[in-house]
């Protein structure tokens, strides 16, 4: 329990440092690290992540339509509520954890164990400025961008699939979609996924910089800690966000009494 509290406190301190030191992004080495992180998380992985996200989103819609024998209105409700608001950000976050979260934790843990973090201190460079700030900002921006891609393709794919499986044309579904979806849905999803990305990077950076040992065995342990805790944090944030913004969580199973 004390360990959990320490890790939580450590992540919160790291978050405070990132907020305070955002101006460090103007320094050339930090700006370069930010560009690399955005390229790694948001650009080089785009095709794979978006395709996987779109497949998952489309299959969810296909199954739900089949099980519920949905009509056009219900199919579009599922698209907006499930894919746009919830699954889009969640799918992007899970895929970012899989790819970038593991990479960040492993890289930083190796740097810590091999003495490279100490080298930064010897150069009078705060490792958090150089290693954490650009990763948190880069992963947050990239996750938000990936979410938009996943949403567009998953919603587009879902509507296409729906038009083939239920008695409604693509134009009819599109009309229903734009009638039901509001800018709030989109802004909500983008802000949420930005926070998901920041949380993933913070937790993974924290575990990378605090590996549970000084031998090479500590690296996979740090990676496991980073991945499991960032996944839990993302799910927790998702519930909190849904409850705060729409007054309900778990797709309506928990409802706010306002």
């Amino acid at each position: 329990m004390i360990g959990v509290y320490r890790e939580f406190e450590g992540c919160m301190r790291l978050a405070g440092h990132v907020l305070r030191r955002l101006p460090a992004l103007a320094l050339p080495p930090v700006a370069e690290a930010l560009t690399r992180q955005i390229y790694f998380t948001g650009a080089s992985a785009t095709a794979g992540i978006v395709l996987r996200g779109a497949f998952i989103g489309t299959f969810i819609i296909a199954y739900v339509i089949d099980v519920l024998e949905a009509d056009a209105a219900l199919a579009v409700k599922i698209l907006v509520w499930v894919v746009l608001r919830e699954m889009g950000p969640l799918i992007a976050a899970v895929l970012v954890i899989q790819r970038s979260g593991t990479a960040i934790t492993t890289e930083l843990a190796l740097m810590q164990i091999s003495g490279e973090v100490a080298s930064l201190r010897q150069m009078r460079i705060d490792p958090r400025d150089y290693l954490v700030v650009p990763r948190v900002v880069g992963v947050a921006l990239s996750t938000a961008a990936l979410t938009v891609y996943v949403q567009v393709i998953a919603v587009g794919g879902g509507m296409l699939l729906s038009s083939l499986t239920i008695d409604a044309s693509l134009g009819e579904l599109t009309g229903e979609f734009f009638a039901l979806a509001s800018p709030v849905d989109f802004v909500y999803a983008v802000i949420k996924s930005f926070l998901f990305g920041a949380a993933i990077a913070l937790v993974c950076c924290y575990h990378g910089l605090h590996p549970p040992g000084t031998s090479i065995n500590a690296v996979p342990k740090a990676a496991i800690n980073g991945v499991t805790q960032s996944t839990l944090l993302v799910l927790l944030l998702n519930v909190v966000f849904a409850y705060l913004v729409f007054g309900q969580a778990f797709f309506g199973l928990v409802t706010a009494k306002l």
Partner: protein
Amino acid sequence: MSSVEPAAQGDAGPAGTASARDVALGYEPPAGRGERRVWIPLGGSHSAGTLSEFQRKRLLGAVLEVKPEPETRLVLLGVDVDGLRPAGRAALRDRIAFLPADGGLLSNLNAWENIVLPIGFHQPGQLPGVAAQVGALLEGLGADPRDLLAKLPERMTPYEKKLTGYVRIALENPDLVLAEEPQGGLDSAERAAAARFAAMYLERRPGGTFVQLEVARER
């Protein structure tokens, strides 16, 4: 280049009472811990002698954090650290550079990126003029900048790693350089080249102090 002098200077006076004024690096550990006293005068090139790994860790920790262990006296660049406020310690730290035995490079950056990393942080305005200085320093030490600068540390020889680390600290023009085993693990030709690190530093920084540390590795 000044001659390399022994680590313990006889003119320093008794431990704990010696004047700090002309001292670049003074380290007086408490008695009974098995550590040697290190007393290096300001200016020139000196050797701190061979330290145990334990003392190396203590000494470097104290110097690089400008914060000695309790009961340990630390003098840096003529200043007794004990009486300094945090801002004074930070200002002092900015005048000191450390060259680790392996160059202290980051493995995911190539030689050029490693070299300009601290400049980019501490003096970003100087970045535009750095390329010419780096080229001159590398050529002066017999290396081909076109060959070295794009290399990642994993593809460098031990000498290239030390050279890259040396160029990185030379650009910062520190008043005190602590170089750990600058000639350790090198062949004779490379040792000769690495022996010029101190002379080149003193050419660029007259009045500076270059201190070599040797470490007795435990087997």
